[in-house]
């Protein structure tokens, strides 16, 4: 709309102060300050807490190969799997980890399409979280096939009898969904990193002349080489930005249906089967909402401590960011709560006695403890976020998010285990308990995840520098802070 269409007699007054949004970068910091603050995380001396956490998490990560080697050399029986519960913690952990990944893609893709500018200060770290969470997720189903050395039968390669995989199985859809998800998330993340890697390359280049010690010079040379190699020779050329921006938008457009499809397909693993408790049409949307819910909780679980550990980050990831994310948790938590209620209603209204039994058994049977853990963590705890104090208090948010993480794990446990343990034939009923190998392997994936995340924080810019600069008023050529004269 051009200015000439608005008659000059009409005056639009600025919005009242209480309706103005908090700035995305506090204190009107300069463009240079943003790159200095983010790069400082990489350039400063390795903090002691980082070394301690890295030692602890990398040691914990060893539990994964230990548990898996024991399992593969002995048999899947060491996982506590038996009839009737043949899908235990492994599948619970898989769905939990992959769900966590969904927040990263939602932030980077869907919020990009919706032009939610606040996403820029959290998208890089959330995308990294996505990639690492999907890696943790992938471990479980790959080993869960039982005879791991035949896992390659999942790929479209003919086996020894020249038989191809069977493409009508949701389990095979899952293979394609998860591997596509991982690859596309990685491409998206990497593309976003290119301009920031160039910033890091140029910073090390500028800093090289000040160094005296040969060891420092060598590290600087190595850093220049690595950042330079992966930044692909980026120069910030506007002819490049033009294609880059378009490609970024297209990748966001591709990732949006992708993120919605991945957890839908994960839910098909259950919904396409004939088992009461699994065979429901509500699963795809309910799984996607739950994934976003749990993912945002994990984003905040990671970001809140990080912000307090690095100076300056609190001006980039502000209370406003936390508040907006809390609202998303409230919305998706309520959707999940609605889905729990609707499942029960349909089980009653559908008139299928087996279906109704499966749900009664969930809430009041042998595993009632897990059901009520799930309800308290997922439905009740996010309701605190109706209150502004709860949404703006980082440590309170952090505690609620901890409960959400537990609740989402319980949800998958409820779905997987309670549906299986009392199936059609009462003679087959049983009670499933995990073994120490289950617990150790799951615990180990936390170490694996944290190791990768700590390495990311230490060596890659954890906030998208170029994107964040782009949403400040200083970057807008039509804003006085961007140099506009009129």
């Amino acid at each position: 709309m051009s200015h000439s269409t608005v008659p000059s007699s009409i005056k639009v007054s600025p919005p009242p102060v209480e309706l103005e949004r908090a700035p995305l970068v506090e204190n009107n910091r300069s463009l240079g300050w943003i790159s200095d603050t983010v790069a400082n995380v990489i350039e400063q001396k390795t903090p002691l807490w980082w070394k301690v956490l890295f030692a602890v998490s990398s040691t914990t990560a060893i539990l994964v190969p230990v548990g898996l080697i024991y399992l593969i050399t002995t048999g899947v029986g060491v996982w506590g799997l038996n009839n009737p519960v043949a899908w235990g913690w492994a599948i619970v952990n898989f769905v939990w980890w992959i769900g966590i990944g969904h927040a990263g893609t939602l932030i980077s893709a869907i919020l990009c399409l919706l032009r939610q500018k606040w996403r820029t200060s959290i998208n890089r770290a959330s995308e990294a979280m996505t990639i690492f969470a999907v890696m943790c997720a992938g471990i479980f189903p790959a080993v869960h096939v039982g005879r791991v050395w035949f896992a390659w039968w999942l790929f479209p390669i003919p086996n020894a009898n020249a038989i191809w995989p069977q493409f009508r199985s949701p389990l095979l859809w899952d293979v394609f969904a998860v591997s596509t998800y991982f690859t596309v998330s990685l491409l998206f993340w990497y593309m976003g990193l290119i301009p920031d890697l160039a910033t890091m390359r140029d910073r090390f280049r500028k800093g090289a002349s000040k160094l005296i010690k040969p060891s420092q010079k060598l590290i600087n040379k190595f850093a220049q080489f690595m950042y330079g190699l992966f930044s692909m020779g980026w120069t910030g050329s506007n002819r490049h930005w033009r294609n880059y921006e378009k490609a970024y938008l297209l990748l966001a457009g591709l990732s949006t249906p992708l993120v919605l499809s991945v957890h839908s397909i994960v839910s098909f693993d259950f919904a396409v089967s004939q088992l009461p408790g699994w065979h429901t049409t509500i699963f795809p949307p309910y799984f996607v909402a739950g994934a976003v819910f749990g993912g945002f909780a994990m984003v905040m679980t990671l970001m809140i401590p990080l912000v307090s550990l690095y100076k300056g980050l609190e001006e980039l990831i502000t209370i406003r960011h936390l508040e907006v994310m809390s609202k998303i948790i409230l919305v998706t938590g309520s959707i999940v709560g609605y889905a729990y209620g609707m499942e029960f209603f349909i089980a009653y209204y559908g008139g299928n006695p087996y279906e109704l039994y499966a749900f009664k058994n969930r809430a009041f049977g042998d595993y009632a403890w897990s059901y009520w853990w799930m309800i308290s963590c997922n439905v009740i705890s996010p309701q605190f976020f109706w209150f502004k104090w709860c949404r703006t208090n980082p440590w309170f948010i952090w505690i609620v998010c901890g409960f959400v993480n537990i609740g989402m794990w319980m949800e998958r446990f409820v779905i997987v285990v309670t549906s299986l343990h009392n199936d059609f034939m009462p003679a087959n009923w049983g009670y499933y308990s995990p073994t120490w190998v289950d617990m150790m392997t799951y615990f180990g994936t936390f170490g694996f995840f944290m190791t990768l995340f700590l390495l990311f924080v230490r060596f890659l810019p954890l906030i998208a520098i170029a994107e964040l600069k782009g949403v400040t008023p200083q970057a807008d050529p039509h804003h006085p802070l961007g140099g506009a004269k009129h």
Partner: protein
Amino acid sequence: MNSIDEYKIPYGIMAEFENAADTMHAAEKIRDEGYTIWDVHSPFPVHGMDDAMGLGNSNVGWFTFFGGLLGFTGGMIMIWYMNSFDYDIPVGGKPNFSPMGNFPVAYELTILLGAFGTLFGMFFLNKLPRHHNPLLKNLRFADATHDKF
């Protein structure tokens, strides 16, 4: 500008600006003068700079489109060949090939190849990777990824 002197013929002429608005007005002038081999370097994409430089829409979309098309048709043909042509696998009385049952996999492959097409299309159009660039020899140019234009 130390290292640019090493070149017998100058690679180009550079000007440094403090903010986005000045850069854009300068770009508009250069566009109107009719120069063709020139560029603007900025630490972030400046809104409106494409117009100020007289650049049209980017062609990356074609790479995405053909990548996605290849993914979808390739996926459908692959499944048809594997489950219905080369080695029939009858399961539960379902048809050996049906567009609906095969949709999820073809859909994922559409996105996968579309994404590869997008990223590598962007690299191709930008002539990247380019690890030797005379511009990068200039130390002051390093501010173009920091806070200068």
